[in-house]
């Protein structure tokens, strides 16, 4: 499933991310919920990192902090050495729901992601390129209500790429899709990453997905040394992408990671 090489005129080089001593506690109406603590992670430019963890383990919170949609209470996050303050233009996010504007065409929705001040012609060219990249060129004038969930998610991915992100953040991007579409989307993401190699952080519940896509799988959870969650383990995934889904080495890691998740569910 090869994608014809795209002439990405507007792409930004991949950026490294550094997360230092990050902590986050949510407070609502007097009660406080510690979510993250003592979190340290270095993601080199161009790496694909999967964030794995049980529900409520703070995966999404961490992801939102990297792009500036949420702010840590303590610690700091830097992209290419400069700290993230507010919504960072070097990042792009895609969510579990496609969150497309229903009144806009797909092409228009993708153009929402273009960096501010993009020249009109260059922007239009980039949108065409991205529509090609996600295989929806002939649906450019459709509206989100007329397409399937998988297609909508591809548009959301294209919209994120339109921003030419140095860091691409994906919050369970395939979580709401059926199993088959999900596998196709995983391959599409690998193709996209091959065509436009940016740094990718993605959140998932799915161990297999993490092992298939990531260079490293980061497991978030409670390590028993305090309230809230932190990194329990970082697992480098062997082999080059695209990986064989039936690779026996992955099978071993899978058991190990599921074990990590299982222990967590017993604790919480």
């Amino acid at each position, binding site marked *: 499933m090869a994608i014809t090489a795209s002439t990405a005129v507007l792409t930004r080089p991949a950026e490294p991310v550094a997360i230092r001593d990050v902590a986050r506690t949510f407070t609502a109406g007097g009660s406080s919920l510690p979510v993250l603590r003592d979190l340290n992670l270095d993601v080199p430019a161009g790496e694909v990192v999967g964030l794995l963890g049980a529900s409520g383990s703070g995966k999404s919170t961490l992801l939102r902090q990297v792009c500036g949609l949420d702010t840590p209470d303590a610690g700091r996050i830097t992209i290419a050495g400069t700290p993230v303050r507010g919504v960072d233009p070097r990042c792009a996010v895609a969510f579990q729901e496609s969150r497309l504007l229903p009144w806009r065409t797909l092409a228009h929705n993708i153009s929402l992601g273009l960096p501010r001040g993009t020249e009109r012609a260059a922007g239009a060219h980039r949108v065409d390129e991205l529509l090609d990249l996600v295989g929806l060129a*002939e649906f450019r004038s459709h509206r989100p209500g007329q397409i399937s969930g998988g297609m909508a998610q591809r548009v959301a991915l294209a919209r994120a790429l339109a921003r030419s992100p140095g860091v691409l953040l994906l919050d369970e991007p395939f979580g709401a899709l059926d199993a088959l579409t999900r596998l196709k989307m995983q391959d599409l993401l690998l193709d996209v990453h091959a065509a436009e190699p940016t740094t990718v952080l993605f959140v998932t519940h799915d161990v297999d997905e993490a092992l298939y896509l990531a260079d490293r799988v980061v497991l978030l959870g409670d390590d028993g040394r305090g309230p809230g969650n932190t990194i329990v383990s970082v697992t480098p995934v062997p082999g080059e992408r695209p990986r064989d889904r039936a690779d026996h080495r992955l099978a071993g890691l899978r058991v190990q990671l599921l074990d990590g998740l299982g222990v967590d569910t017993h604790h919480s």
Partner: protein
Amino acid sequence: MSTPTTTDRSDDLLTQQDPPIDTTLPAAGVTPGGVTGAATTPTAPSRPRGLRSRRTLVGAIVPLGLLALWQAVTAAGVFLPVQLPSPVAVWGAGVELVERGELGGHLAISTQRVLIGFGIGAVLGLVMGAVVGLSRQADVLLGPTVGAFRAVPSLAWVPLLILWMQIGETSRITLIAIGAFFPVYTTVASGLRHVDQHLVEVGHAYGLRGPRLLARIQLPAAVPSVISGMRLALAQSWLFLVAAELIASSQGLGFLLLDSQNNGRTDRLLLAIVLLGLLGKLTDAVIGVVERRLLRVWA
């Protein structure tokens, strides 16, 4: 608002429609980028033209039936003509008024009052609704007060308006504007308040804030509720027009109602009622067309 869904999310259809991710081979017969949406979409059928005219025909059954019943009842002499004149007599009254050159004036002044009052009330309602719907502080500050004013039955303002503005166009149009203001205010405020927070977050994530966020996400998302507010407000405007013209005026359909009652001209009275119904329906239909156009895009 029961717009027929243009989307069929059945699995079979989706798998058929879902194009292969591999894009090296464009589908035969499709020029990339040259395809307009609706023409090729299997999921967006254009409604056959026959269906709409059939709808109009079915919709006409009850009014025509009522007309026939009216004619039959009056022809049979069930009611005195002063209680219920025949449709023919009402038609005759209309023709007579047209020949005397009076009907046009009544219609014109009433329509003008409604349009001006509605315009003023709707614009004010839009602005106030936007402020209260978008800013939590404004909501806390202004919401209760506007809510209290809204709770006053709007006709209760009539004596005060007459006291302040005397009897005249100003007080009439103000009353209509009051009637139009509240439906627009309420729907716009709640429409903006309930814009999908997910979409707003997308806007933030893609660097939109302030006026750009408003223009690209919040306002468009609230368009359906703005339109339904406008529709309600227009209906209210006609209601308040009649109230204003019944109380004090020398022209207009409300005046025609009152004047006919005083002179025992039930035929003219019925004529005024029918005309009010027709005009109200007509202006509502205009907004309805705009609404359908927009919802086709928005839904």
